[in-house]
């Protein structure tokens, strides 16, 4: 089985996380490192995808600034989304040539990992035709947006754990006028470590990866 290093990076600014992803994508493309799965928690951030629509941002940049939210345009797929405390953001850096050269299958597999993880906590998440992500009773609990360069993935998914959903009022999430939810709102009491442990397990199974904790020797 192929190896995948898992790193829990904790609270990390969006730009710092992006810089790390870009570095790891290059190293992955050159075959210097195995596949990676990064977990981060961003401070309040709103990001707009490459083919996103700025009109889905409902607040001016001044209001965002006053509310302590940073705004970034990015090269991932998808429209606009919010990241913030209490959200489990996962960034897989995978070389899809070693799995399937299929971007749609990749997104479906990420959804599957999330759906299987939610089941561990008694939540039935589903896919919704034409609307990428994982949904519970018509509300979106996890968003997905991906970038691929030479079949190496970056960006990924954001699962609302204890996210303050009030922050989504600033945007039309993913350009859809559909409500969002969080695991906390759905009654899940589990902590972040428990959830990421389950996610890693299902992710490894779905992608046939042998996951190992990344241990940083130099900082």
């Amino acid at each position: 089985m192929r190896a995948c290093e898992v790193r829990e990076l904790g609270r990390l600014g969006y730009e710092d996380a992006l810089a790390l992803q870009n570095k790891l994508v290059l190293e992955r493309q050159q075959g210097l490192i195995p596949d990676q799965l990064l977990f981060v928690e961003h401070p309040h951030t709103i990001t707009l995808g490459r083919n996103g629509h700025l009109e889905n941002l409902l607040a001016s940049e001044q209001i965002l600034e006053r509310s302590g939210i940073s705004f970034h345009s990015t090269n991932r797929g998808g429209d606009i989304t919010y990241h913030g405390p209490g959200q489990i953001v996962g960034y897989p850096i995978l070389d899809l040539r070693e799995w399937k050269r299929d971007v749609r299958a990749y997104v479906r597999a990420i959804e599957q990992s999330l759906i299987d993880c939610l089941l561990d906590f008694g939540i039935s998440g589903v896919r919704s035709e034409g609307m990428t992500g994982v949904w519970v009773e018509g509300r979106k609990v996890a968003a997905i947006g991906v970038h691929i360069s030479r079949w190496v993935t970056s960006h990924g998914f954001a699962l609302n754990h204890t996210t303050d959903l009030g922050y989504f009022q600033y945007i039309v999430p993913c350009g859809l006028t559909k409500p969002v939810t969080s695991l906390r709102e759905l009654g899940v009491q589990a902590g972040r470590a428990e959830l990421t442990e389950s996610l890693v397990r299902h992710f490894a199974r779905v992608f046939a990866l042998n996951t190992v904790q990344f241990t940083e020797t130099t900082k």
Partner: protein
Amino acid sequence: MIDIVMPQMGESIVEGTLTKWLKKQGEHVERDEPLFEISTDKVDTEIPSPAAGVLSELLVAEGKTVAISTVVGRIDEAGGNGAVAKPAAAVAVPAPKAPEAKAPDAPAPRSSANTACGRSRN
């Protein structure tokens, strides 16, 4: 001339949206250098250039969705100095006579005719 095509990004994917050209018309590109971005579902993919040369034609505008294998642009491997256009246009006239004899310079009669058409507009 090298055709740049909309790649197939997976088994069930029949089309893609060209979201952004990363190079301008007339700009030189290296082989494997990121050339344009496409979008399928929630995935944005950077597509590397199939060859080194000059990006001579952009046939699909940003924001357009086209079927896979559609030619979205062309790369002129010769290097793109203005001189290239003239001999190609001249070839178009004698071509029906002896296409075989011209073979070393012109690729195939069919494509050289297309090239002449494309250039006559300029």
